[in-house]
Each structure stands twice: as C-alpha cells, then as structure tokens.
C-alpha cells in the first residue's frame, strides 16, 4: 500500500512541473509567432535560442517537426499544430504541447510551414543539442555519429555542455573524444588546442590523424627575403628540395619574373610567322631539330615579332635572389609543433600495430597455404609423385560446398555438412586417381606429373561444362560475417580466423594420425623406405592409396575454406597449385612441420612484400618466386630436410 502511494506521489511530482511549463511553451511560441511563420537565416537565431533556453520538454519534437516540414498553423488563430491524416480527407490536429488531440480541421483551414534549407540547417544544428542529451542512449549515439561525420564550430560548446550530463560511461568517452577532436579543429584558445593535440599521442585512431594532418598542410611560397611573420615549415633549397623549373614557375606565378614561353607556344609562334616557306631566316624544311627551331625563334624574337625567351642564366639568378619556403596554413607555431610531434608519436604506435596486423595477415595466408599444400606434401613425401590435379581436388571440395548449399539452405548446417562431404568426395576421387592412374606409373615421377596434369585439365573442363564459367557463391554463415576489430589498424575477418582454426585442427589431426596410429606408423615406414616396409609386412599399395586419399580429402576441405572467401570457379584450384608446390618445396618433403614452416615463410613473405608495395600484388608474387628460386640454392631439400636413407632418391 505504501509503495503504491509512493509511486503515485512520484508521478505527481514528475507531472506537475511539466504541466506548469506547458503554458510557458505556448506563450513562448505565441511571442515568436511572426518569426516562426516567416523564418529567415538572419532572424531565426534568437528564436531558436529562446526556445532552447526555455527548457520545455516539447522543444526537441517541435524543432524536429519544424525541420521536417511537418508543422502546421491554423489560419484562424495562428496556433501551431502537428497533424495526422483522419477520415474524410480531414486532418487531425495534435497539440504542440501536450500531444493531445485538438479536434479535426479541413486542409484549407491550415498552412503547412516550409522553412528553407538554410533555416532547416540552423534548426538541425540546434537540434543536436537536444539529441546529445536525449534520454534514449540510442539517439544520443546517432547524434554523435552525425557529429563525427560533420560538425561545425557551434557544436563545440554544445558538446562540452552535454558531456557533463552524460551518465553512460561509453557514450561519455566518445563525447570526450569528439570534444577533443573538435577542440583541435575549432578551438579558440591556443593552449587548449595544444593540450587536445597532445592528448592524442600514441592514439592509432584514424580520426585523430584526420584531425591532426590538416594542421600540417603546407604550401610553397616565395619571399624576397627570409620571412618572419609566417609559420615556416621548411626553407627550400632550389635544385635539391625544389626543382629549378618549378621554382621559377612559382616566381612567374607570383609576378616576380617574366614567364617562359612553353615549347608548344613557341611552335605555334613559328607556324604563325612562316613567310614564303621561311621563318626567322631559316627555311621551314630545315626545322627538323629543336636546335634549328630555337635559332629561328631567337631571330624572330630579335625583330620583336614574338615574346623573347628567358635564358637559363636569367632563370637561375632570379631563383637565387628569392627565398622559397614551405609555409604552414596554420599560423600558430605552437599548434604545428604539437601536431608534428604528436603525429610522429602516433606513427610509431601505428607502426607497431601495423606490424601486429601484418603478423595476423601472414598467419591467415599461411594457414590457407598450409591447408592447400599439406595434402600435396603428404602424397609427395610418401609416394614421391607430384599430383598436378591437387588443385582440382581443392576445386571439387569448393563445388561440393556449393552444391550442398543449394540443397540445404541453412548456411550453418550446410557448412557443417559440406566439410566432411567435401572430404569424402575428394577422398574418393583421390583413391580413384591413385588406383586407375598413378599406381601404373610407379617409379616414373615425371610421367606421373604429366598424367595428373591431363587429369587436371579434364577435371577443370568438366567442372566448366557442369557449372558454367561464371563464379558460384559459397556463402558463409552469418556468424562468420564481419571482422574482429581491435582498433583502426588491427583487424581480421572472422572467416580468416575460422580458417586459421581449421588449419590448426588439421595440423593436430595429422600429427595425431601420423604419430599415434597404426596407419601413421605404416605411412612413415613407407615414406622412409618402401622396400624395407613391405618386407615387414606392410602393404605399400594400400598405404599409397590411403595416403593419396587422405591428401586429396584435405584438399577438398581446403576447397570449402577457400570457397568461403573467394568465388568458386573451375580455376579456383589452379590459382593455388603453384603456391602449394612452392610451399612443399621450400618446406621440405614428407614432413608436416616442413610444410608448416614453408607455408609460414611463403605466407609472411608475400604479405611483407605486399606491405612494402601495396599497389602491386603482381610484383609481390614475382619477387616472392624469385626469392624462392634463390632460397632453393641454399637449401635444395627445403627448410626441414629428411636425413639418412630416406633423403636419397
């Protein structure tokens, strides 16, 4: 009982002042009616100010409706209403203060207020103030996002005021950060701005750099003597810091020197002055060298027919007599110094984060290469054959994933089904290939290479005939969309994390199979010495078949993984085959750790080269391959070479 009374009391207390203000707001609108009716950019400011200071709860909605041209005025008494459509073409009036219905009216009885765009922009700016302290955190965030994108000087004080009332710590942090950024941009007090600039030291955010970089914008200017009243970034030495020609052009632009006549204009002048096949005393037919043309032009200039040339010496002395400086657009040296120092500090931090990002990228690429190459490495190690169709097993896996998705529409379920199915399909294809072709080419590795190439082109073309040449999508489940973002520099997509986990899982699984199971024991035995193994009762044919199937099956899994981020085409596999070969060759044959090392090296190498030459991934691949060719010189058997009898061939 007591609780109910308390609630009622609280409600009363909350409602009472609101009630009292209603009439205030009405009167307020009444006072400014004329200016609200016909607003203009020059007269609207005091009205907005008065509305904002009134603290009435209806003001925010009022401003919003006004801006969106949804405010109506009754012609009879000049009162403002919001409207809703009612039956019979009539409009239902809604009181601006209470939100209560205030009867119906014909459309003709009302005027719709449509402020022009300038006024609406001013209303919107005013609205920010209300939105920033809106009780709904979602709307506050929206307002902040809008401000981050586009803010002006007036928002700074509004934002500062809004920080104090903020209760949500996350939003408050964002507000503080934005306030600092705006201070850098619009602040009036130099010390304040410097403090704001310094506060971003070591901050890798893009917004911080975006705020700081404009402060350091420079332009090259010419002075007769060393300047004193400008904020100089650097004094330029003509010839080293600035080209002689560019320096002279600056002088010309500043009106401090005579303009050079460009080559094209000189040619036009010559053409214009041809008389009877002769120009400047030189026959036209002789003007086949620049030297002859210059001679003719000088002769013309001597007669005054064309503007004279500016000699090299004249240019040089004119340049030498002036001072060329890079001048900051920002006049305050304290600001530019602070910005420069902060930016260099930031660039150190960003460099560290970029390195971390590079490591993540390399790991991700390495895990893809590992998945693509490990199957190849196993078959190569055990049987000594290169399977050129390995890339097509990757493709088979990817298409299996695609077909499964056509049947099972749920992406999560379809991926879970596709992974083992891709393994099974590729496993069967591998076993078939081994039994039908490779077994009959035992001890002829080069023929095997070419025969599997034949299989490869046949499989590719068959896939093209079945699925067409256009890329087929293999959609990842929605929980793999997006990316893990640590800050503006370090991020990695969830798909790549998933592939990394998948690669780790297969690394573990293969290590387990090879080191802890009977099959693994036999595989290792055949790898090391097939004849000895067979005399110990191991059937090498069976082992070869199973290993080949296992290697192909993993390629199938890799296909599903690759298909998730690349489009599935019949050429999907061949894009990875050469990299897979490289991985195996660099890593060393017949050893999981070798393949891991090879994949790690090739992946990180490619990413590092791309990092230094980001615009040109083709060049990155070229350099990488050249590097590998050189690497093979020093370790012909790969990073991890088998020792002893197994190494002999």
């Amino acid at each position, binding site marked *: 009982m007591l609780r109910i009374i308390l609630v009622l009391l609280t409600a009363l207390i909350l409602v009472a002042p609101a009630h009292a203000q209603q009439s205030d707001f009405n009167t307020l609108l009444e006072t400014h009616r004329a200016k609200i009716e016909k607003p203009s950019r020059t007269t609207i400011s005091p009205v907005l100010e008065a509305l904002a200071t009134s603290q009435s709860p209806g003001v925010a909605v009022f401003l919003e409706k006004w801006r969106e041209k949804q405010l109506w005025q009754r012609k009879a008494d000049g009162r403002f209403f919001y409207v809703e459509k009612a039956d019979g073409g009539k409009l239902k009036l809604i009181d601006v203060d209470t939100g209560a219905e205030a009867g119906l009216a014909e459309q003709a009885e009302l005027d719709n207020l449509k402020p022009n765009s300038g006024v609406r922009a001013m209303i919107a700016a005013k609205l920010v103030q209300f939105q920033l302290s809106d009780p709904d955190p979602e709307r506050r965030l929206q307002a902040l996002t809008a401000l981050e994108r586009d803010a002006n000087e007036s928002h700074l004080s509004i934002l500062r005021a809004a920080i104090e009332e903020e209760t949500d710590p996350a939003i408050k942090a964002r507000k503080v950060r934005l306030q600092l950024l705006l201070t850098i941009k619009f602040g009036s007090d130099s010390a304040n701005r410097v403090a704001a600039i310094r506060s971003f030291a070591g901050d890798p955010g893009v917004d911080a750099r975006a705020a700081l970089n404009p402060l350091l914008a420079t332009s090259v200017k010419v002075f007769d003597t060393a300047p004193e009243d400008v904020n100089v970034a650097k004094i330029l030495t003509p010839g080293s810091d600035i080209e002689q020609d560019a320096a002279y052009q600056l002088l010309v632009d500043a009106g401090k020197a005579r303009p050079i006549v460009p080559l094209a204009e000189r040619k036009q002048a010559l053409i214009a002055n041809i008389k009877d096949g002769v120009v400047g005393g030189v026959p036209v037919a002789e003007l086949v060298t620049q030297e002859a*043309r210059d001679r003719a032009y000088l002769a013309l200039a001597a007669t005054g027919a064309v503007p004279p040339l500016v000699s090299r010496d004249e240019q040089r002395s004119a340049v030498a007599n002036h001072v060329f400086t890079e001048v900051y657009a920002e006049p305050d040296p304290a600001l530019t110094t602070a910005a420069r120092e902060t930016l260099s500090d930031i660039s150190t931090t960003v460099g560290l984060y970029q390195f971390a990002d590079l490591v993540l990228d390399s790991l991700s690429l390495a895990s893809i290469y590992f998945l693509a190459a490990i199957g190849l490495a196993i078959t190569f190690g055990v049987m000594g054959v*290169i399977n050129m169709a390995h890339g097509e097993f990757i493709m088979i896996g990817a298409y299996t994933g695609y077909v499964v998705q056509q049947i099972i529409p749920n992406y999560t379920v379809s991926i879970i089904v596709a992974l083992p199915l891709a393994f099974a399909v590729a496993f069967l294809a591998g076993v078939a290939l081994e039994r039908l072709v490779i077994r009959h080419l035992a001890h002829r590795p*080069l023929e095997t*290479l070419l025969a599997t190439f034949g299989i490869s082109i046949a499989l590719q073309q*068959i896939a093209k005939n079945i699925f067409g040449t256009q890329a087929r999508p293999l959609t990842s489940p929605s929980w793999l969309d997006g990316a893990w973002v640590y800050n503006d520099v370090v991020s990695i997509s969830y798909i790549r994390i998933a592939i990394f986990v998948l690669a780790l899982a297969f690394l573990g699984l293969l290590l387990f199979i090879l080191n802890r199971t009977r099959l693994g024991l036999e595989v290792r035995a055949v790898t090391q010495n097939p004849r000895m193994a067979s005399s110990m009762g191991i059937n090498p044919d069976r082992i070869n078949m199973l290993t080949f199937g296992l290697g192909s099956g993993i390629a199938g899994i890799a296909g599903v993984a690759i298909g998730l981020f690349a489009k599935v085409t019949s050429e999907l596999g061949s894009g990875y085959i050469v990299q897979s070969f490289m991985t195996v060759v660099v890593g060393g044959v017949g050893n999981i750790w070798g393949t891991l090392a090879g994949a790690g090296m090739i992946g990180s190498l490619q990413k590092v080269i791309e990092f230094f030459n980001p615009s040109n991934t*083709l060049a990155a691949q070229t350099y990488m391959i050249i590097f590998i060719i050189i690497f093979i010189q020093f370790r012909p058997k790969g990073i991890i070479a088998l020792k002893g009898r197994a190494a002999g061939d």
Partner: protein
Amino acid sequence: MQRSLFVRQPSVLIFIGLLAAFTIAITVLSEGFGLGLVSTSFIKILGKTLCLCLVAIAMDLVWGYCGILSLGHFAFFGLGGYMIGMWLMYERTKDIVIASLAGAELPATAEEIREGIGTQIFGVVGGAEIPVVWYFADSLWAQLALVVLVPGLLALVFGWLAFRSRVTGVYLSILTQAMTLALSLYLFQNDSGLRGNNGLSGLQNIPGLTHLPQAVVSVWFFLASAFALGVGYLVAAWVVSGKFGSVVRAIRDDETRIRFMGYPVEAYKLVVFTLTAVIAAIAGALYYPQAGIINPAEIAPIASIYLAVWVAIGGRGRLYGAVIGAATVSLLSSWFTGGQAPSIPLGFYTIDWVDWWQVLLGLGFVLVTLFVPKGIGGLFDRLVRKDAS
C-alpha cells in the same frame, strides 16, 4: 661427320625431304604464289604449327634426351616473340606517327616523333615515355640479337643456379614452372615496360613490307618457319648423334654414374638447357609475327605444360616424335576448338567439341602415358623393327 650424322640419324634425310616436299606443295597451292587452293589463314596456321614443331624439338632435346622436364620452355618462346615484337611494333608505330605528322606546318623533329610513338604504344598503360628496355627497338639487327641473347642469358643464369645446387627431377620441374609464373606475372604489370596485359599487337604488319598483301607475307613466313624447322632438326640431330649426345643421354639415364666417371654433368645440362632455350626463342620470334599478337597469358605456366604434353604424345627421345606430337595436337586442337568439329548428339545430351575437347585431350593424354609410353613416334619404331626382322 656429315656422313656419320645421316647414318646415325636416318630420320634426318627423310624428315627434311618430307618437309621440303610439304613446303613446296603448300607454296604452290597458296593464294600468294600459286593456285590459291589454300587460304591465307590456313597458311598462317601451318606456319605457326611449324614454329610449334620447332619448339617441340627443343623440348624433346632437353626432356627426351637430357631428362630435364622443363616447364619453362614456352617462356623462352614467348620472350623471343616479345623481342621481335618490340621491333615490329616500334617501327610500325613510327611509320604511322611520321605519316600523321607529315601534314603539319612544321616538319617533325626527332623528339616529336619519339613522343608520338611513346603515346601511341604506351597510352593504354597510362604512359607516354618509352621505357629503357625499348632502347634498341628501332634496330632490327639489335632486336634479332636480343631474340637470342635475352632468353639465352635467362636460361644460362637460371640453369646455372638450378643445376649448381643439384636440383633434379620433379623439383626442377617445379622450379622452372615457378620461373615461368614469375616471368608472366612480371609481364602482366603495366609498369613492366611491355604494355602489361595488353601485350604487343599488330605484329602481322611487317614494317617496310606493308605494300605486300598478307597472302604473300604469310607464305614468306611459312617458308622461313619451314627453313628454321629444317635447320633446327638438323642441329638437334647433330647434337644428339655425336659423343656429346651420348653423354647427354647417359646423364638422362644415370646422372650419378656419369658424374662419377668424371664428366662435368652440370656443364652438359647447362649447354643443352641454354641451347634449347635459344631454339625456343627463335621459334617464338617466327611464331608471333604470324599470330599478330603476344601477351603475358601466352607465357602462363600451362602453355609450357602443354608443350611437354605434345612431346609426350609424339614420343620422347625421338626428334620426329616431337614434331608429330606438336603438329597433331596443335592442329587437332585448333580444329576442335575452332568449332569445325561436328557435334555428337546423344539424344539426352549433345557433345559440343568446343566444350569437350579439353576433356578428350586430358584423358587421351593420360591414356597415352599409361598405355603408349613411347608416344606416336614409338609406333614407327615397331614398323622399322618389323621391316628389319
């Protein structure tokens, strides 16, 4: 020496005789010089096929006789094409630029002509400057020398690196494939100076011979290709028939034993590798003026694998086998992919050879490897043996 060559390689005389007869017959039947029964486009196909036969001979030397399965010889072929293509394109563009500047009020200066050529050739890759690699492009003799020198040097350096570190077998194949891939990726870049993926085009227009119809020029190139093939066959036969050839074959069969016998195995391999690269480059230099266009896709690793496939189908270790393989497969290939082969209706599905030729080639190739390891050329061996017995 001459006598012993023909005695040891009886196929040389037969081959050169057949080639000469074929060449004369085609020339007589051509549009340019004779009855006009063979179309110009077919003459071009035949001329190109002869060049492919020549590069197949090179491949057979290096693989069939020396045991190095190089997956990079088509890269040398393409490089040769690029070298001659630079001269063809530069000179032709120069003619065009001079013709277009001829009407101007002032006669053009050398700089203006160079600038015009630069814009014409490199406008597509967003440049106007003529890159350094085109330094000799205005000289036919220099570019002809480069046809031999550039691929030869590349093969020399690459081979030296590879053989020195005793890379053999499939490792070497993969390494050569890597070289090919690196080269083609490099050429794909716009700033490689060779027009990126646009490649060089308009190569069928021979500067200085533009007044002649293509019907005549194509026959000339056909004859030149036939001559080059004949000489190439002769050189290859000479190389494999003497003592040098014996050592090379011995290296193929047991490299370690030859090394223990005191032969510098690496030097022999390097000579064969470089020589065949040069032959491939010459074949390429004759091929691309007939094809009219060359781009980095021609150098892609798959082309070199196809080359190995031709030689394998034709029969390794027999020079005529390489020629037969290259001619058969490339002619069949253009017949099937050209849409001329009749489709086979099966009722529920129609086999369209444009789509299924690759499958047929791939599987056919597997069957040849499995069941006819000596290739088509091996069938001749049987005939000869039957005659002898």
